[in-house]
Every structure is written in C-alpha cells, then in structure tokens.
C-alpha cells in the first residue's frame, strides 16, 4: 500500500503542473488585467507597474519564472491587488481560518448526516424516517447564501445571541453561524446517501445471515452493516471535504471571517493573477491528497478492494 501511495503522489506532479499551466493561460486569456481600472492608467505609469511585476515579459517567460520561483524558493509572488502583502502572507493568514470552520463543518455534517441516515434506515417508514428524510431534503435545498442572511437575522438581530460576523481568533460564538451555514446542505446529502446505502445493506444476505445467527440488532448495525454503508458515503465525502475547505466564499462574504474563499473569488474578479494561481495550486494539491486518502479508506472499509 505504501508503494501505491508513493506512486500516486508522484503521479500527481504532472497533474498539478498541467493545472498550473492551464490556469495560467486561461487567466491571461480573460479580458482585462490586474491594472485595468475605471481610470485607465497613463501608458508610462502602466509600463512602470508592469515592469515591477514582470508583466512586460512574454507569457512563456512569466510562466517559467513563476515555476522557478515556486520550485527553487517556494515563493508564490506578491499580490497585484493587496500591494502590502504577498501570496504566502494571504494564504498563511486565510488558510487556518478556512480550515477551522471548514473542518468543523465537515465533522458536523458527517456526524449528524450519518446519524440521521442510519436512524432513518433502521426505523424505515416510521415517523423518525419521515422526519429525517424531510430534514435532509430541506437542508439540502437550502443554499448557504440564503442561510447566511437568515441566520444573522435570527441570531443577531432578533435574539441578540451571537455576533453578526467576524472571526476574533475563532472564538466559539463567531463559529456557530458559519458552521451551521456551511454544513447544513452537506448534512442533508450525507443523510440521504447513508439512509439509502444502509437500507440496501440491511436487506442483503449477510445481514440476514447475521440475524439468523441471533446477533443483537445493535451488533448487526455496528459490526456488520455500518462499514459497507459508509463506502458510498466516503466517495461522496472526498469531494465534500475539498468543497467545504475551499468553497467557503459565501461564509467569508456573509460572516466576514477572512478565509480563503473570498480571496479566491475576488482574485478571479480583480485578475490578481498571483493570488489566483497560488490558491488554485493549493486547492489542486488538496484535491489530489484527499482523493488519495479516500482511495486508501476504501481498502480499509472493504476487504474486496486491494491495491496493486
């Protein structure tokens, strides 16, 4: 398995390289640049700025310099928009924030989602099942850009229990609303997937055998049914993990958390090339690593899967 993991990591290098090159050229294809503004700069001023950031070089040279700086110095360059800061600064400030509320949301969504799904499957066609399914559909249908303002309205304006936004070092009152907003829809999906997977497993032959042996229901669920149930859930959780940790632009916008999601989107809009590329690479690496972890988790869950 170690050999497999090493081969997968090495195989990821060309993938990331292709990602960088494709993103680089796509970014430059988009009309306008970081210094296009409502007040077009005089040509001599624009020339000075482009010289400072190396944008006066041919594209292949810019790309080459960029790759060299990453490989040799681990330097992702300065931000073109936030002129007092460089990309590493922005990532090292935003990533811990994004990871904190992202991971929390991931665990909340997974734990509650799986619990709801299992409960619904065990009590199939009872009020508990209907409640879990309704909750799941409702949560899945509620986009987080609706959730954000509604939560703030309820908990900040009407009840006055929670601060309407900010981060404050990740102090818990500031975390509650972002985590609810981000985890809810994933929780809905996870509960639905878990429920249908569990129902299928509970109707399979080996469970019938287990029941025939006279095992207790709790033992059947925990020892035999849960592991195979989690297989489809795990394949869903891989991408969700990446989404939750990266796709947090709404949380950042509505709750002013200062995470990376906002930087990613605004960098695309303002053509902040270096920030956009830096975060793209980070997300690319994250996706590759998480995919690998998901595949390794399969082997642990299902003895039928083995890696060559």
């Amino acid at each position, binding site marked *: 398995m170690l050999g497999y993991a090493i081969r997968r990591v090495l195989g990821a290098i060309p993938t990331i390289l292709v990602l960088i090159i494709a993103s680089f050229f796509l970014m430059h294809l*988009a*009309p*306008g*640049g970081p*210094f*296009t*503004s*409502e*007040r*077009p*700069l*005089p040509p*001599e*001023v624009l020339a*000075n*700025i482009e*010289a*400072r*950031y190396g944008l006066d070089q041919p594209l292949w040279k810019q790309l080459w310099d960029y790759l060299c700086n990453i490989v040799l110095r681990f330097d992702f360059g*300065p931000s073109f*928009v*936030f*002129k*007092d*800061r*460089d990309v590493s600064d*922005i990532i090292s*400030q*935003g990533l811990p924030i994004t990871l904190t509320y992202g991971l929390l949301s991931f665990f909340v969504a997974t734990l509650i989602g799986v619990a709801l799904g299992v409960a619904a499957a065990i009590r199939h066609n009872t009020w508990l099942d209907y409640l879990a399914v309704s909750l799941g559909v409702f949560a899945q249908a509620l986009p987080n850009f609706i959730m*954000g*303002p509604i939560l*703030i*309205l309820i908990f*900040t*304006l009407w009840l*006055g229990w929670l*601060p*309407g*936004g*900010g*981060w404050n070092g990740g102090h818990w009152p500031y975390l509650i609303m972002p985590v609810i907003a981000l985890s809810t829809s994933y929780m809905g999906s996870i509960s639905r997937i878990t429920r249908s997977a569990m129902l299928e497993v509970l109707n399979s032959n080996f469970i019938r055998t287990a029941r025939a042996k006279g095992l207790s229901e709790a033992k059947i669920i925990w020892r035999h049914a849960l592991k195979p149930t989690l297989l489809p859930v795990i394949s869903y959780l891989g991408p969700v993990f990446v989404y939750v940790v990266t796709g947090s632009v709404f949380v*950042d*916008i*509505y709750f*002013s*958390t*200062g*995470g990376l999601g*906002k*930087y990613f989107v*605004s960098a695309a*809009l*303002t*053509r902040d090339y270096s920030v956009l590329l830096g975060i793209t690479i980070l997300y690319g690496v994250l996706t590759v690593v998480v995919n690998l972890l998901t595949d390794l988790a399969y082997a642990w869950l299902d003895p039928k899967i083995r890696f060559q």
Partner: protein
Amino acid sequence: MKSFRLLCLLAVVCNFLNFGVAAANGHIPADVKLADDQTFTYRMLDEFTSVDPQIVEDVSGSEVVRDLFEGLMNQAADGQLVPGVATGYEVNDDNTVYTFMLRDNAKWSNGDQVTAHDFVFAWQRAADPELASPYQWFVELMSIENAAAIIKGEQPVDTLGVKALDDQTFEVTLSAPLPYFPQMTTHSTTFPAPQKVIEQHGDEWTKTENIVSNGAYVLTEHLPNERSVRERNPMYWDNANTTLDKTVALVINDENVALTRYLAGELDRTEVPAGQFPRLKKEYPQEAISFPRLCNYYYTFNLSDSGPAAFKDVRVRKALALSIDRKILTEKVLAGGQPEAYTFTPAAVAGFAPPAVEMAGMSQADRDAKAKQLLEEAGFGPDKPLSFEMMYNTSEAHKKIAVAMSQMWKQKLGAEITLANMEWKVFLETRGSQGFELARGAWCGDYNEASTFLDLLDSESGYNDGKYNNAELDALLDEAKSSSDTSVLYTKVEEIFADEMPMIPVYHYAGVYMMDSDVGNWPVDNVQQNWYSKDLYKIAE
C-alpha cells in the same frame, strides 16, 4: 475668481492661525455630553488594498490613510481647506512656486519630528518608477516640475520640483500654474512617509508591528477581510483636541448583512441598500441620512468610427437624453435622495455654476414630445425604429437603471434596445477599446473642482471612452488650466455639452447612510466625503 479663491483659502488659513485652538475645540458644541466609550465602528465595503499613502488607491484605504497620516492641508467638515502639518503657504506671482510652512510640533508616532524632508522623500517616492505607484498619474496631474519625465524614467527622481529649504519649509515648483494645487495636498498620495522605517522594513513597513505614522491615529490591529482598528496617536500634535479614542472598520461585503448588523447595534455607520431609504427614513428618521456626493452616473455614446452611425446625429443623442424620466429613476428606482442630472458636473462642486440647461427647465411631457420630434427629424419612426445595444457592468443596481431606461425609450420612442451586461474587467476592456454602442459610466471627483469631471470630455483624455471630440471645448479646458476665472469657462463647457449631448447624464450620487444619532460632527457638507476620525465624537445616549 481663482485669485479670489486663493484669497479665501488664505483667509481660512489665517483665521485658523489666529484662532487655531478655538476652531479645533469648536467641533463639540457646549451642550453636548460626551459618551464614556469613544469608539466609532463602521462598515467597510471591502478590504483595503494598502495603507501605504503613496500606493493606496481605493476609497476604503484612503479613509484609513487619512486617519493614520496627515498631509500639508486637511479638509474641514464643510470641505474647506484647513492647515494640517503645514500652518500655511505662500505662492509666487506666477502661481508656480508654493512654499509651505510646517509646524514645529508635528511628530511621527515614534516621537521623531515631521520635517520637510519627509515630504520630499514621500513626493519623490510617489513619482518613482521603481515603486510603480498606480497614483503616479496624480503626481503628473499636480504638474510638479519634471514629474512626467521622472515617471517615464528619463530623469532621476531627485530632479522632482520639491525641496526642503529647511526642516520647516517645503517648496514645490510647478511646471504650469494650477489653480487648485493646495486642494490636491489633502490627497493621500501627498502625505509624508517615514524614510527610516521604510528603509528598515521594506515592503513590510505597513504591518501593524512596523508602521510609524504622523496622523491622529495609529494602526493597532489588522485582520484582512475582517477588521482593522486605529487608535489615538499620543504623539499627534493636536491630540489634546482629538476626542474619538478608537475607530474600528469591519469589512462586510454584503450591504443587507451590514444593515442587519447595524440594526443589531454592531455598527455606527453603514450604507443603505438601493431602494430601502424611504422605509428606513420612516422607521429611523434620525438615523437615515442622505446628502449630495461628488460623483456622476451617465451613459456614453460611442462617437468613434466603430460607433453606430445613428449616434453621430446630435438629434438622436438629444432625443434619448430627453426621454429619460429621471424623476422615476431617482425617486422610484434608487430612492435614496439622489439629485437628477442634467449637467455632467454635479451642482455640489465648489465654484461651479451650472448653466440654465433647457432640458432641466422642461416638464417631462414636453421633453418626451421634443424627443419624439427630434427622432422623427433624424429619420427614425415606426417604419425604421432606432435600435442599439446598451452595455453595463454586471450589478443589480445598474441592471435596474438600464431596464428602466430601455423601457422608457421603448415606450416613448419605439426604440429597440438590447441590454448587454459584462463582468467588470471585461466591461472596462470593451468600453476602453470602443467595442460598444452605449455604455454606462460613473465618475467621482478626485478634488472639489469642476475640471475633475470636465477633463473627461477633453478629446485627449484617456478616460474619454466615447471619443467625443470638440475643439472649442478642448480650448476652453486648456484656458481653464491657467485662468483666474474658471467658473465662466466651466459653465461654457457645460453649455456645449448640453448642446451636443455626447453623454447622457442620469443622476448625481448621494451619500445614503444609516448613521447612529450618537455620532457627532459627521461631515455631511463635505461632498467628497473625506472624513477624519479626529473631528468626530460620540455623544452620551
């Protein structure tokens, strides 16, 4: 007029020198009881790009920089010039050499004296091609001797027309007389910079742990995209007359969330989302405020070769301008107290006398009738409807205006309009390369003088995206650069504008805020909305 304005400015300066302390204390009325907690918290639309005075280019950043640093002159609550680090200035007979006298008690936050050398360093830095500040254009605009050549890299930075005659005397030589030069020294690009600190820390000098500033406040906390905090600078020369202890800027991108947080008591000031002002004014009459701002909103015709032939006919342009019901746009769509626009320059601009434009005096029914008549004369009618594309950048607010305008044209003139919205940078690129027929535009004045708007109409202007070209108008603008009576010239320019209608003025901006009634001395009369925390105070509730 120019010399008169100069005299007025000098009078204000002298007044201040004589009654300096009284004037500074005067911003708190005697019957006001101050609150114990002197903290002002406001919503910032987006994270600022920099707090380096020579680099900052966005409104949010400039607001912070105005608190952290102090330039030669400041603006009072009504927008008038008042002394900053300079106690006053003298100008030679040609209006080309300005000599500023600096106060001897101005200090940096590390205790060092603020000297004329700090200004020389900062102004050279602003022009330096190596720093590559986007606001190099402002240094060019200030007409400082050799600025253009330095920016082009043809001359060394130390040839810039700025000199420290001694620690307290700063001299600026201009390549051409500029009537509004002193006003430009309230702009952040001209604020002093701490040479030692910049040389020691390089690009990192603006970090909270390194920054040294000379304004009434210092930056004590900065969490990008979340908040920044500025607190009293005990070294500030006028600290004794500063009331507010702390100003907190919270970055809240969504204006509806910001309003909710304002109503929950987390903010002292926020912008009112479009269309909500009437409701809020009714519910919170003391807190919902609206006042004129120094910005215009317009649509520009593409008059270049790539533009449609129909727009080359002034009758078509006038017909379109006439048939927009600005009352509906300002009262029903925007509903924030915005003034209707019939001139390019907002009436709120200092020293600007708007001409009596014919269109402004007509009733909407008369305008519509005239528009129909003009369009028919131009050869358009039910058999041959006028059709064109109207371009704006993607935004709910712009969309509402564009939809309303296109419907008015459709109903009144039978015109067929295609709406095209584009992402911001694509929009700018398309407009800048004349790839449009009719495009949205907006402009905010860099200083309180009509030329900051009217220069857009100059055929040579890089901002003249419609490529309007009128030699007479160009000549008038040229003359205004050195004239002593600019008001008459600007009025003439506006008359030509009204005659030729190269752009359709739609409305002028208003500052529409929710402002907690315990905030004292907010400068509602400063049309540029250049506010200084040092002039504000919090009243006990």
